[in-house]
């Protein structure tokens, strides 16, 4: 268990291009930190610097307050799950998991190794496969062996590099909850790299969003979602993504493609001097006016081009003409987000009761308080409320600590009971299984 601190970390590869640029990050003891960003943004590089496989060009890396920049990987006592698992093909599953224990010469007796490996295998449901070779396992099983190898020893922290990206969608969902449960149960500091915003939102206590090697925002998933600092974070977090609409500033009104929104208060101050802004509206904040009542809402009508019904929800697509003045900025954003350069259309996440059909002209409404306004030049979010953000951060931190406490208490309880009464402990373990699944 330990804290990890990154201070102004820079990584330049041979060609001088900074793959990671001036990243500072504090990871608390027991925290689940996610590094997220489009591919090529330097997530793996950052993780590999933490574990010691890549030299740090400049900056300091501290584990438990001790500078470890110059320590070899084996002296940092971190464990890592590689993107393609890197299992040892010549060893059985048992020996793969036991590998780190066997390397710590003299530290563990054979019996100890056996019991530790069996514990890890039980937790990951690998009991029946211990004598098999990795080549004969399925993708999900290999993934679990890789995790077993990481959790079997008492490492200071777990590092994961896109551990689920090679699994199919269903398995990915299962393993995601599995990882979350395991991290809570073990309470070990974890850094988890992913390019998938769903994993980032569901797993992390806090999420660090990277773009081209530069840290954009570090915050709880909820804060990222509700109070993004800039256009990039707003566009990256959320699925389907936030709609970005160009808007002309006319005194104290914003002229959007479909409607006009009056603005007042501090936002009007910030808009002074700007001709054009980008308005961000999450698809779920736009309602079908015929089934939902939006008090103080802005109403508009638009022609729906396409609808997708998914049972629990449905999406409507509404094309619009983008303003040339901001189109290049939106195109750039699209490229940054690994987009496909699709045409400009607004996505609306409708209630599944909504009866809007393709080709209909329909009435929509949204609450202007839920709208984000971005400076098109800098990408800065002009509607971000620092006070609210701080409140969310405090809440999430409290929740995290409570969850960790609970997990530790449960663990201690389980240990006590298993010492006294085996069958009771088994019962509680079964409880845990049932709750998680």
């Amino acid at each position: 268990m330990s804290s990890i601190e990154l201070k102004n970390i820079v990584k330049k590869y041979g060609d001088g291009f900074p793959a990671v640029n001036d990243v500072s990050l504090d990871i608390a003891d027991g925290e689940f930190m996610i590094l997220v960003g489009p591919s090529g943004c330097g997530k793996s590089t950052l993780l590999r610097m933490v574990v010691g496989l890549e030299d740090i060009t400049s900056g300091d890396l501290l584990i438990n307050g001790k500078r470890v920049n110059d320590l070899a990987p084996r002296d940092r006592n971190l464990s890592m799950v590689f993107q393609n698992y890197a299992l040892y093909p010549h060893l059985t599953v048992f020996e793969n998991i036991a590998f780190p224990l066997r390397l710590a010469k003299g530290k563990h007796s054979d019996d100890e190794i056996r019991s530790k490996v069996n514990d890890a295998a039980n937790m990951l449901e690998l009991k029946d496969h211990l004598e098999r070779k990795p080549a004969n396992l399925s993708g999900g099983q290999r993934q679990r062996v890789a995790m077993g190898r990481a959790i079997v020893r008492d490492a200071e922290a777990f590092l994961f590099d896109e551990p689920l990206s090679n699994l199919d969608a269903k398995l990915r969902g299962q393993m995601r909850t599995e990882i979350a449960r395991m991290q809570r149960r073990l309470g070990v500091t974890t850094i988890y790299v992913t390019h998938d915003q769903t994993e980032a939102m569901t797993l992390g206590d806090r999420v660090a969003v990277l773009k081209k090697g530069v840290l954009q925002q570090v915050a709880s998933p909820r804060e990222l979602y509700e109070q993004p600092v800039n256009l990039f974070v707003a566009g990256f977090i959320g699925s389907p993504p936030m709609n970005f609409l160009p808007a002309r500033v006319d005194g104290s009104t914003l002229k959007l493609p479909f409607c006009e929104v009056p603005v007042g208060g501090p936002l009007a101050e910030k808009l002074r001097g700007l001709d054009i802004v980008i308005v961000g509206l999450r698809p779920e904040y736009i309602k079908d006016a015929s089934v939902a009542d939006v008090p103080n809402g802005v109403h508009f009508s638009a022609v729906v081009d396409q609808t997708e019904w998914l049972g629990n929800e449905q999406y409507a697509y509404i094309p619009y003409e983008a303003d040339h003045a901001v189109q290049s900025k939106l195109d750039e954003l699209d490229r940054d987000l690994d987009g496909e350069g699709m045409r400009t259309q607004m996505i609306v996440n409708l209630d599944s009761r909504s009866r809007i059909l393709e080709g209909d002209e329909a009435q929509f409404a949204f609450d202007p308080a839920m709208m984000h306004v971005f400076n098109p030049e800098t990408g800065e979010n002009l509607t971000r409320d620092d006070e609210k953000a701080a409140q969310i951060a405090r809440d999430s931190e409290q929740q995290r600590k409570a969850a960790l406490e609970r997990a530790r208490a449960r663990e201690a309880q389980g240990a006590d009971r298993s010492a006294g009464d085996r069958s009771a402990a088994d019962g509680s373990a079964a409880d845990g299984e049932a709750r998680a699944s």
Partner: protein
Amino acid sequence: MESNISDKTKWGLAAVSIPIMIWTIIPILWIVATSLKSDAALADPSKNMFGNFWPKSPSLDNYRLILTGGASELFNPALLNSIIICLVATFIAVLLATFCAYAISRLDFPGKRLILTTALAVSFFPVIAMVTPLFNLWRQIGLFDTKIGLIIPYLSLTVPLSIWTLSAFFQQIPWEMEQAAQVDGATSWQAFRKVIAPLAAPGVFTTAIIAFFTAWNDFVFAVNLTSSNNARTVPAALAFFTGASQFTQPTGAICAAAVIVTIPVVILVLLFQRRIVAGLTSGAVKG
């Protein structure tokens, strides 16, 4: 893999490989047949069948001659020399080449290309051009007609070859394997010994066999750098066989010796055939 090959391709491959197999196997069968012929049969086609190919009454006289008879003083020490010299040369070559190829495939250091191209250039160098200077040098420094005097030139043949084969093998092993070991707490040496070396084993066996054959089959060095049973190997010793009388050629005895020296080669290949099959690394990564 096999399942990807359609039936048509399979038959096509068979059609091509059968003539090649016949082409290579006939000379070997011929040597075997000749080694079983008596002196009389060698001179008289009527004692043979299939048009002078197979003796009507095969005899093991030739084998007796070289193993226990008149030629045994020449052949038995030569066989022992061959085995010792080739095994030592192979062992040293593979050991050196393993480290060298590992460094070449894993590390980025200046002069990497140079080492590889030099290795290639050395193996192109005609053997016959090296023999005369070596002969003079060895006589001066006392390596002439010693086992070491043969092992050293054999290394110059086998090391470059082994470096090339092995670096190809090492490059196939995912580097992450080694990094994973380091993160798990291994030193570089432990990572090499416990992870990389076992994974490279099929490559090392293949290389060892190739290196062994290269040394085993050499004639030029063996005949020129030796003068007695001290170090003379089988290919050289064959040249010194004499017939039963001044007027008979020792054809049968030479063929019998050739058959005997082919046996270890065949055994080696059969023994390590499975190890040579690559694909041990499958399952390391996502697959």
